[in-house]
C-alpha cells in the first residue's frame, strides 16, 4: 500500500520508462545527419548500375545483349552494331537502362562477360520525370567514371574480379586484326 503510494508521488514508473532513453544519452550516436553526413556503404552495396571502361578509356561494353537477356524486369535495351572508330569491334550503339523498372538484383553484372557493368554506391537519383530515370550509355559511363574504385570493389567482393586478372584470354575480348582488300 505504502509502495504504491510512493510510486505514485515519486513517478518511479516514468523513471523506469526513461531508463533506456537516459542510458542512450551517454552512448555513441547512431543517427547520421543525411544528407549532410553520408554513411559508409559496404562494397557489395547494390546501388545504381554503371558502365565501366578499360584503363585506356575505351568503353568495355561489347553489346553482347546478355544483360538484356537476363534482366528479370526487362529494364535493359541494347542495340549493338559495329564500332564506328575501332574497326571490326562490336559495341552497344544504344544502351538504355530504365531505373524505374530496375529491381537492382545485379543479374546483369553477373551476366556481363567483360565486366563492363558494375553496381555503384550511388542510390540517390531522383527525377521529376520518368524519362529522367531512363539512363543512356553516356550517363551510365559517367556514373562509372564517378564511381571509380567503388565499381571495382563491387566486382571484387562479389567474386567477379577473377576474369579480370586470370590472365587467360577468355576474360579479355581482344579482336583479331582484319585483312581488308587484296
Amino acid at each position, binding site marked *: 500500500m505504502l509502495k504504491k503510494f510512493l510510486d505514485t508521488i515519486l513517478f518511479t514508473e516514468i523513471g523506469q520508462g526513461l531508463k533506456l532513453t537516459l542510458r542512450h544519452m551517454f552512448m555513441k550516436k547512431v543517427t547520421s545527419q543525411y544528407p549532410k553526413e553520408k554513411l559508409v556503404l559496404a562494397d557489395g552495396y547494390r546501388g545504381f548500375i554503371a558502365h565501366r571502361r578499360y584503363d585506356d578509356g575505351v568503353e568495355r561494353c561489347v*553489346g553482347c545483349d546478355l544483360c538484356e537477356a537476363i534482366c528479370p524486369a526487362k529494364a535493359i535495351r541494347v542495340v*549493338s552494331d559495329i564500332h564506328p572508330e575501332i574497326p571490326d569491334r562490336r559495341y552497344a550503339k544504344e544502351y538504355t537502362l530504365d531505373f524505374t523498372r530496375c529491381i537492382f538484383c545485379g543479374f546483369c553484372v553477373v551476366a556481363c*562477360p567483360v565486366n563492363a557493368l558494375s553496381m555503384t554506391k550511388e542510390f540517390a537519383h531522383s527525377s521529376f520525370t520518368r524519362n529522367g530515370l531512363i539512363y543512356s550509355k553516356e550517363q551510365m559511363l559517367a556514373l562509372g567514371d564517378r564511381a571509380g574504385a567503388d565499381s571495382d570493389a563491387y566486382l571484387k567482393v562479389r567474386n567477379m574480379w577473377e576474369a579480370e586478372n586470370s590472365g587467360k584470354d*577468355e576474360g579479355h575480348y581482344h579482336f583479331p*586484326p582484319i585483312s581488308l582488300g587484296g
Partner: protein
Amino acid sequence: MVKLTVNGKEVDVPAGTTILHAASAAGFSIPTFCYNPRMDPAGSCRICAVELEDSKRTVMGCITQVTEGMKVLTESSKVHEARKTNLELLLLHHPLDCPVCDCGGECPLQNMSFSYGGTDSRFESHRNDEPEDMKSEVLVFNSNRCILCGKCVRICDEIQDVHAIGFINRGFDTIIGPPLGKKLDCEFCGDCLEVCPTGAITDRFVRYQFRPWQMEKTETTCTSCSSGCRMVVDTENESIVRISSREGLGPNEGSICVVGRFGFNGVQSKSRLEAPHVKKAQRLVPSTWDEVLPELSTKLSAIISRGEGRVAGLASSRLPLEDAFLFQRFMRQVLKTNFLDSEARQGFMNMALPLVSATGSLRPMVDHEDIVKADLIVVLGADPAVESNITGLAIKKAVRKNRAALYLVHGRDVSISSRAREVIRLAPGYEAVFLRTLRETLSSGTNDLSSEVRVRLDGWGVNPDAFLRLVSDVKSSKRTIFVTGRRFHRSDAAFEASHELIRLMGERGLFASEGSGLFVLPESGNDLGVLMMGASFEWLPGLLETKNSEQRSVWENHWNTKLPSGGGGLREILGGIESGEIRALISFGVDPLRFLPDSAGVRKILSKLELIVVADLFQGPLADMAHYVLPAASSFERTGHMVSAEGFVQPLAPAMAPWGNALSEGNMILRLAAQMGCPLPFDSIEAVSAEIFRIFPDLRPSTRNASYFQGKTGEILLSIPRSQPPHKAERESVNSRMTDFLKQTPHPIAAPVVGDEVTKGENTFVMTLSKSINHAGTQTLLDSNLMTIEGEGFLRVPRQWARKMKLKKGACVSVSTSHGRISLPIDPVSGMAEGEVHFPFHFADARFMELFPGKVSFNAHSGAQSGQTIDVKVEPIA
C-alpha cells in the same frame, strides 16, 4: 530388312541404312554437327558417336551402316565420355568469344557444350588468333571459330554445285575459304552461312546487329521469282533484320537464293511511299485515305457512267491470288471494263495461251522431284539457276546424282552449261523453226539429216551433230522434261514456238507418261496465280474464256451481274487510250514506262488520260504522271497466297506492319468498291481466300517440306513420311484435251525477222535483255544489300571479242542503234555466241530504252510485247 536394337528397342530398317537413321526410326535422336540430310555423310565432327554393345566400341552413327543383330547404345556413359572428349577437342582452339559472335544464341556448338561439356578442359592449347577474312562484302570467314565440319564446302559442292569455297592448308592450319585467298566470288546464295554450326561464316550485312532471341520469326513465301521458296523472316521492332531458312523447310528444302536472302532492304528503304498522294497544281501532295477514296470514287463513277470499257487496269504478277481475284472482279463488275492485263503479258503469256488452249491448265505436270528423276532435261531459252534458283538446283542434282542428260538450247553459256551434255547455240528468234525442225525430224523416223536441213541449222547457229544427239536422246528417253524460261517466252516467235513445243510433246506422248512433261518458269512470283484468277482479258477466274458466252455466264450467274466481253490487253489498252476510248488507267504495281521502248511516245499516249491511279511501293515514272498515287503494302506486310512454278499454293504471312499508311491492293479495292456504292461481298482478305478455296478446291494451300522437316522446333527428324499435295495438273484431263489439240493444224510460223536496221559489220551484235542472278525486277535496285553485290549493269560481251579489242572489264563501250547511242561498261564473259551481247534488264533505264525502235510492237497472236531483241553496234570508245 535388317533387324537391330537401339537402346534395347528392336527396329527393322532397310539394309544400307545408317545407325543415325535407324536410331531416329526407333525414336532416339543422336546429336550431329556435320550431318545434313540433304548431303552425303562425311563423319568429320565425331559427335554422333554411339556404342556397339557387343564389341564395346564407339562408332560414328552418321556413317556406319547397320548390320543384322547390331546392338546400339546411344546414351551410355561411354558414349557421353566420347562426346565430351570430342567437344573438348573441338573447343581446343575455338575462341570463347560467344558474346561477340553473331552465331551466339543459335549455335549448335554452344548448345552441345552446354549439355555435354564440363566447365574445364583437360587439354591446354593456344587459342587461334587468325585475322578474319573480310574481303567479301557479303560473308565474313572467321577461321578461328571453324570446327572443320565441312558442311559449307559440301553444300556448295553437292547442293549448289558452285564450288566457291574449299579447305585450305592441312592439319591444324586448315581453314575454310575461297580458294587461293581470293575474294569470294559466287552466287551468294548464303547456304554456307545457313548450315555453319558455329560463327565461322557470318553475314556481313547485319554483322553485330542482332541476337537470335530478340527476333520474331515469321514463315512466309518469297515472291521474287516463281520458285515459291519458303523462308523465315526475322524481325525486330517491326523491321526486318535478316532472312534465314530452316533445314528442310518448303519446296526449297532450306535453300534460298541471293535475292531472297539478302534482298529485304528495299521494302524498308526511305523512298517507300507512306501516304496516298493527290496531284494538285502539277504536284503530288500527301493526303489521307479518307480524303482520297471519296474523291477517287467520284471521278471513277463519272467516267464509268459514260459506258463500258472506259477504264483500263494493269496488275503486277506479284499480287497474291486474293488481290488478283479482287482486281479482276473490281474491274469487270464495278468498273464495267474488260481492259485488264498483268505483267505476264511481257512474255509469259506467249506460253500461257497455247498451254491453256492445249492442256486446259496452267499447273505443271512435273515438279522438282520429277526433274531430279528425269533421264533427259531439255532447257529451252532459260537460265534456271538465275530465273528460278531452286529449279536450277533440281537440274544440277538430276545431272550430278542421276546422270540425267541435260541439253541446253540457248544463245550463250549459262551457269548450268558446264553440266550439259550438249549446249545447242540458237540465235534469238529461231526457237519456233528450231522446234518445228526437231518435231519433224523426230516424227520422220530417220536418224540423219538432209543436207538442206543441215544448212538451215547452221544458219541458226545450231550444230547439226549436237542436234542429232538431242534427237536420239529424246527418242530413247523414258522421262523427258522440257524447261522453258525467260528468253524463250520473250522471243519474237515465242507464241509459235510454244505451240510447236506443245505439239512436239503431245506427239511424243510426253503429256501422257508419268515423269515427263513441261516445266515452265514464269518470271514473277505469282504469274500462274494471277492468270488463274483471271487477271487478263482472255480469262475469267478458273481460266474460263471471256469470249465464250457460255463460260462467261458461269461467273455472271455466280456474281449476279453482267460481265463485259471484248476488251483487251496491253496492246489494246494503249490503242484505246490513243483513240480516246479509255479515259482512266489503274495500275497496281505495273509501270509500262519502265519496260516499253519509246517511253516518250508512250508518255504522250498516257497523257491523254483523264485519270491515272497508281498503287505501288515506290515512286516511278508512271507514278510521276499519276493523279493519285496510293501506297501499296509489300509482300512482307500482307496475307495472301502465291502459286509457285511447281503448282504449290503457299501463304504469305505479314512479318511487319504496313509501311506508313500503306494498304494491300486487295484492301484498297475493297474500300474503293464500297466507296463507289458497289461493295464486293468480302469483309477481309481472309474471306476472299475462303471463297477462292471453296470454288477452287485444288487451290487449297499446299507445300512440300523435306521428309525430315519437323515444324517449328527446327530439329531434324529423319523418319516422317512426306505427303504429296495435289499441286500438279491432272494427267487424264490434260491428255483428253491434248488429242483435240493435236488434231488441229499446226500454227503457222512467220519467218524470223532478222534485224536489218544496222548494217551487219564487224562490231555488230544481237543484244538481248537478261535477268541477273542478283536482282529480281527493278525494285531490287533500291536494295542496299543487293546493290552492294551488283550495283551496276555491265554489258556482257564475248571474251574473245573483248580480247581482240584489248578491252578489260569495266571499260566503256559505245552501244548504238539507228535510234540511239549509249555508253556502257562491259564485262567480258566466256561461252557466249559469237555475235551476241546481253544486258541485265534491271538496269535498263530510260536512256537505255532509247536504243529500241520508236514504235512498240506486239506479237500478233498473244499481244505480248515483241522486239525485245535488237541489233546493236558495239564500239570501243577511243
